[in-house]
């Protein structure tokens, strides 16, 4: 799996958004990936034997050539998952409606503005009605107070996919986005475990993104806990994010630490190796002081959490003086 971000343009301003780090250090308002670069990105992924690609932004459906981009992917043996806030132009929605089969699916990230704006809800409802089971719901957990239960209602009412993707809002090193501080992880874990039990009853599967750690969940013997545990602890490794300008990063939270150009001949394995080498120095830091004494870490079940969140613990004299 790899990500291609095709535009920095977005019609929402989520405080926790980590993709805005790209606009911040590019010092440009909007960058749209051109067709040649997109073709080069696809060739790189094919060379790397990557057959699943996620399309990101900003809001990717706002790219001026969005429909051509979809066509370019469908010409190749690549499956596509589009990350969207759901507020897509009608042309984009019609394009997605007409695609048959399951090669293209849509992840609608429920943003904080949802529910509070009736007009926004209406647009999202249209997307859900039009795309149905092609839609997977996603949620970025940016505060301990985030609510989950309404997603089960949406899945039931609109017959959406039975999966929910959950991600933690991670900090961007040298960035300014809001993020979920690890001190809040136990509260998030407690509430999430309760939701996991409700989801299980509703036959909905929770898919956890990187950065969740076992110690954030209250230990018990429930099936929900065991399933959640299977999804946590080990995942902090280079994802490979291709940016709209053709540069490649390990992941957005670590974007400012290292960047490479799309290689002319090498593949993603080679590139991941370069990122691992560059970031190895920071692997000795974990998200908590106590990680060194944690049995999950000692048993090799947990690698110590998100590297970007870990690096936020670092102090330097110019900041601490």
């Amino acid at each position, binding site marked *: 799996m790899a990500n291609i971000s095709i535009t920095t343009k977005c019609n929402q301003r989520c405080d926790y958004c980590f993709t805005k780090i790209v606009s911040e250090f590019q010092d440009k308002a909007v960058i749209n990936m051109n067709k040649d670069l997109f073709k080069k990105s696809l060739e790189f992924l094919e060379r790397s034997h990557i057959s699943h690609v996620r399309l990101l932004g900003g809001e990717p459906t706002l790219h001026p050539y969005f429909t051509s981009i979809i066509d370019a992917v469908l010409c190749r043996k690549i499956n596509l998952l589009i990350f969207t806030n759901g507020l897509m132009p009608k042309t984009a929605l019609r394009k997605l409606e007409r695609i048959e089969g399951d090669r293209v699916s849509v992840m609608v990230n429920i943003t904080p503005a949802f529910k509070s704006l009736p007009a926004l809800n209406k647009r999202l409802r249209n997307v859900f009605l039009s795309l149905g089971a092609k839609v997977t719901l996603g949620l970025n957990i940016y505060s301990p107070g985030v609510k989950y239960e309404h997603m089960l209602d949406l899945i039931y009412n609109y017959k959406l996919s039975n999966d929910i993707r959950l991600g933690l809002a991670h900090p961007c090193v040298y960035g300014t986005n809001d993020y979920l501080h690890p001190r809040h992880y136990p509260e998030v874990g407690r509430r999430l475990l309760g939701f996991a039990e409700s989801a299980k009853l509703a036959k909905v599967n929770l898919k956890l993104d990187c950065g969740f750690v076992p110690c954030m969940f209250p230990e018990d013997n429930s099936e929900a806990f065991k399933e959640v545990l299977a999804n946590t602890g080990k995942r902090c490794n280079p994802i490979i994010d291709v940016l709209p300008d053709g540069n490649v990063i390990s992941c957005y939270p670590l974007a400012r630490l290292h960047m490479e150009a799309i290689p002319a001949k090498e593949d993603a394995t080679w590139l991941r190796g370069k990122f691992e080498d*560059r970031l190895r120095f920071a692997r*000795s830091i974990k998200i908590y002081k106590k990680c060194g004494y944690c049995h999950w870490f000692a048993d090799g079940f947990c690698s110590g959490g998100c590297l970007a969140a*870990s690096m936020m613990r670092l102090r330097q004299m110019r900041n601490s003086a």
Partner: protein
Amino acid sequence: MTRDSEQNSSNVSRFLPNPHIAWAIEIDSVILINHENDKTLTLKYPQAMIWDFLTRGYTNDRIVPLVSIIYSCNENESLDILNKTLNDWLKAGLISVGNNHG
């Protein structure tokens, strides 16, 4: 450092981490990261404790008695520990002399 300069520097000098050095405090150690060469160094005690005092801006005359208490040694022994540590860190480029405020 000569014994005389040690005596003088230990009374009034303050050493501070260099700007390219980042650190994270763990339960039983301090991890240093040198951003100039991406090398890491783990400090165990007593060096971890001395580093912590430096970052708080403590002068040597404040650190010496603290090390002495914690390690149940006399102040001369404590001064030797401190001077050796500071020398090593100066040579490694981890610290430099700060303002001479008491």
